[in-house]
């Protein structure tokens, strides 16, 4: 079994101790590497196991909860930088796939940002309310289920039109699979994965290009609303 499959099996067992040992024995130690090359592929593998009828959604829930714990443990100890740029992160209403968002949140904190992480399923009204008061520089949205895509446009527009015009970042499983640009508005940036997000972060510091994803994959399937 590869490292990735081993981690996936521990996550499915719901054994955070074994999963943690697996992360510790991974040759790369930098958080972004562990996120992108180990944890994300392990969770994708779990998705694949569902698609091939090997596991159920309940198993996936257990793996998600275990992975969530591992992510919290991994990002524990990143110090808050009080005067830094601010970013808030949320999943669209109904969207339960939040692990990627959580990794992005930790990536931002590691880069010295002050963040607020709202996790899965945040209604737009609440996001708007918070953003209006807290005035983040960046709002990160995550979407993983095609069915939730129509809501993305609504979120991107409403949040992007706030008085302080925050940058809207869009990520999640679909960002790597489809061209989501038509669901965004003027200040929406699509980031297809963690390395691209990290690049964006570095560019933000240096004032470099902030275009987000350049490759344009296919359009997502349409949903009757």
């Amino acid at each position: 079994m590869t490292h990735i499959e081993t981690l996936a099996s521990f996550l499915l067992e719901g054994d955070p101790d074994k999963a943690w040992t697996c992360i510790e024995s991974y040759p790369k130690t930098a958080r972004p590497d562990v996120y992108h090359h180990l944890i994300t592929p392990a969770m994708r593998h779990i998705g694949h196991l569902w698609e091939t009828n090997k596991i159920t959604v309940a198993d996936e829930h257990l793996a998600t909860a275990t992975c969530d714990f591992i992510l919290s443990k991994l990002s524990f100890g990143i110090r808050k930088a009080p005067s830094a740029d601010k970013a808030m992160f949320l999943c669209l209403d109904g969207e339960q796939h939040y692990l990627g968002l959580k990794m992005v949140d930790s990536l931002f904190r590691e880069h010295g940002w002050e963040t607020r992480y709202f996790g899965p399923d945040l209604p737009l009204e609440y996001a708007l309310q918070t953003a209006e008061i807290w005035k983040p520089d960046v709002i990160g949205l995550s979407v993983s289920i095609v069915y939730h895509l129509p809501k993305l446009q609504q979120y991107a527009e409403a949040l992007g039109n706030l008085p302080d015009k925050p940058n809207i970042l869009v990520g999640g499983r679909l960002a790597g699979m489809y061209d989501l640009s038509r669901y965004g508005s003027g200040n929406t940036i699509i980031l297809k994965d963690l390395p691209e997000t990290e690049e964006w972060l570095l560019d933000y510091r240096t004032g470099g290009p902030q275009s987000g994803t350049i490759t344009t994959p296919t359009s997502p399937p349409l949903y009757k609303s």
Partner: protein
Amino acid sequence: MERLRLPLPLPYIRVNRDGRIVSYSALAEEQFDLSNGHIRSLIDEESINKLVRISSETGLAPIKMELNMITKEEPFALFDVHLQWDTENYASMIFLRKDSSNEELIEKLMNIQHRLASSDFELLEKKEELESALKRLDELSGPFIPLSDSLCMIPLFGDITADKINTISESCLQSVFRGNYEVVLFDLTAVGEVHADGIEKFIQLVKTLNFMTGDIIKLIGIKPNLAKELNHHKLDQWVQFNHSLKEELSMYSHKRHD
């Protein structure tokens, strides 16, 4: 497409190899929009591949799989789908909505787990805070006091632990090296308990000071319990023992008046 007269207690749909619906039960019609006549239109885009793959791999044995489906009520709902092919190349499918009370339970479980995780991290955070407070306390437990150009004093407070002596050693050595002292007093009046590893570290510190500076090191304010402990370590060659700060200071002032 034929509607079955049989009153089945679960939604039932029969499809051909292409996925065209050939017959369905009353409950299937009630729950799903069958107007398209194709099984595809009932299944979430991303579950279709799963259905196609799993159903094509199975022989005549019944199989069960989870699929996300589009119902009249919900655009995205998880179902257990039981499927079996017959010899005429038709698949019978029965649809069983995943019990939503399960979902509630899962959600509650997740909330509890979330709370546990956050209290776990709060505890860790408190532990770190406590550790840094203890370290700070250690740092403040051995202040350096220059009494004159040639005499300095380091009173030790609290229990003598290895951690504490390690913490104060560096600043203590630096302060002593910086001056030109002849005598270094360690005042042990305010010492509580003595740990064996603490006393070892303390003796190391005293030896280092003695080697590096050649200063006379004196221990004052030694209580009986400490005296017993120190006795094991044959310190006489490194330090002098005197009784109290008072005696030491009076000796020092006599010397100055001479």
